[in-house]
C-alpha cells in the first residue's frame, strides 16, 4: 500500500487504456493510484468544458483583403506548371544532346541517366497535371512535342546504352 509498489503512472494509464494489465489490478486495491485516476478523470471533465474563443470579428475581412492582392490560385498554378514544363524541355533536350557522351560505357552514367529519366517523367507528369486543369487544349500540342522528344531520347538510350543487367 506504499507508493513504492505502485506501478509507473505511464504503465497505469496504458493499462487503463487497454482495459487490462497488472497495473490495473493493483490500482483496484490501491487508494493512492485510485486517487490519481480520479483526479485525472475530474481534470478531463474540466478540460472538456473549455471552449475555443471567438476570433476577432474582422479576421475574415483582413484575410480577404490580403487575398485580394494575390494572383488567383489557377494563375499561380499556370505559372508553376509553365516553369516546370520549361524545365522539362531543357532537361529533355539536354538528355537528347548529351546522351551519347554520357553513355560512353560507365555504369555510373547509366545510373545518372536513369535518375534523369525519372525526374523528367515526374516533372512531365506534374507539369501536365497543373496545366491540364487550366489550359488543356493549347497545352496538348506542346505536351506531345515534349513527350515525343523525351521518348526519342529514351529510345536512343535503349538503343545505345548498356542493358541494366550489365551495369
Amino acid at each position, binding site marked *: 500500500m506504499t507508493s513504492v509498489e505502485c506501478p509507473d*503512472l*505511464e504503465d497505469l*494509464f*496504458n493499462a487503463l*487504456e487497454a482495459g487490462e494489465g497488472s497495473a490495473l489490478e493493483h490500482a483496484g486495491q490501491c487508494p493512492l493510484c485510485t486517487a*490519481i485516476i480520479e*483526479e*485525472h478523470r475530474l*481534470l*478531463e471533465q*474540466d*478540460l*472538456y*468544458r*473549455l*471552449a*475555443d*474563443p*471567438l*476570433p*476577432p470579428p474582422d*479576421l*475574415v475581412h*483582413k*484575410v*480577404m483583403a*490580403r*487575398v*485580394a492582392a*494575390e494572383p*488567383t*490560385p*489557377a*494563375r*499561380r*498554378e499556370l505559372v*508553376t506548371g509553365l516553369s516546370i514544363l520549361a524545365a522539362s524541355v531543357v532537361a529533355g533536350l539536354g538528355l537528347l544532346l548529351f546522351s551519347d557522351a554520357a553513355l560512353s560505357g560507365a555504369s555510373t552514367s547509366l545510373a545518372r541517366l536513369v535518375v534523369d529519366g525519372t525526374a523528367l517523367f515526374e516533372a512531365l507528369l506534374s507539369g501536365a497535371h*497543373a496545366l491540364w486543369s487550366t489550359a488543356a487544349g493549347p497545352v496538348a500540342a506542346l505536351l506531345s512535342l515534349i513527350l515525343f522528344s523525351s521518348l526519342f531520347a529514351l529510345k536512343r538510350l535503349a538503343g545505345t546504352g548498356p542493358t541494366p543487367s550489365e551495369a
Partner: protein
Amino acid sequence: MLMADEATAPPWKASVVAARRGDPSAFEQLVRSVQRPVYGLALRLLGNEAEAAEVSQEAFLRAYQNLHRYDESRPFDLWVMAITRNLCLDLLRRRTKVKTEELEPMKEILPSMEASLEEGAIARQERQSLEEALNTLSADDREVLALYYVQRRTTKEIAQVLGCAPGTIMARLFRAREKLRKKMTTEEPT
C-alpha cells in the same frame, strides 16, 4: 469530367475548386468555416490575441497561395491548422531566441471568456485557474490538450495536424494531463 465522386465529395471540396478558379467568395466561405479552430489553436500556442490574429491571417494567406498543392481528400480545416501550427512554432522559436525572459505573463489572456456569462462565479474561477495552469505548460503539451479536449478532435485528426503517428497521441495526452494535474494540485490554496 465530374463523375460519381460528387456524391461522396467532402463538404469543402466544391469551395476549394471554386476558390482555385479565383472565386473569392468561395475562399471566404472556407475561411469562415475554419477560422475558429484555427484562431483557437494559435491563441493556445501563442497566448497572445494580437499575435494569434496575425498568425491566423498569415496561415489563411499561405493556404490561398498553396491551394493548388492542397490535396482535397485531406480535411481542409486540419490542413490550415497544420499551417497555423508551423507558423506558431516558428514564432515561438524566434521568441525564445530574442528574449527568454520578460515575456508578458498571459494571465488575462484566457480563452473561452464568452462562456463566463452563463456560469457561476466558482465555476468561472475554476476554469480560470485551469486556463492559467494550461498556459504554463509547454507548447507541445498545450496543443495536444487543446486539440483533444477543447476542439474534441480524434487522435487521428490530431496526428494529421501535428504530423506524427496517431498511436503516439494518447501517451502524449496522458503526459500532458499529468503535468497539468501536478500544477493544479500544487496551486490549490487548501
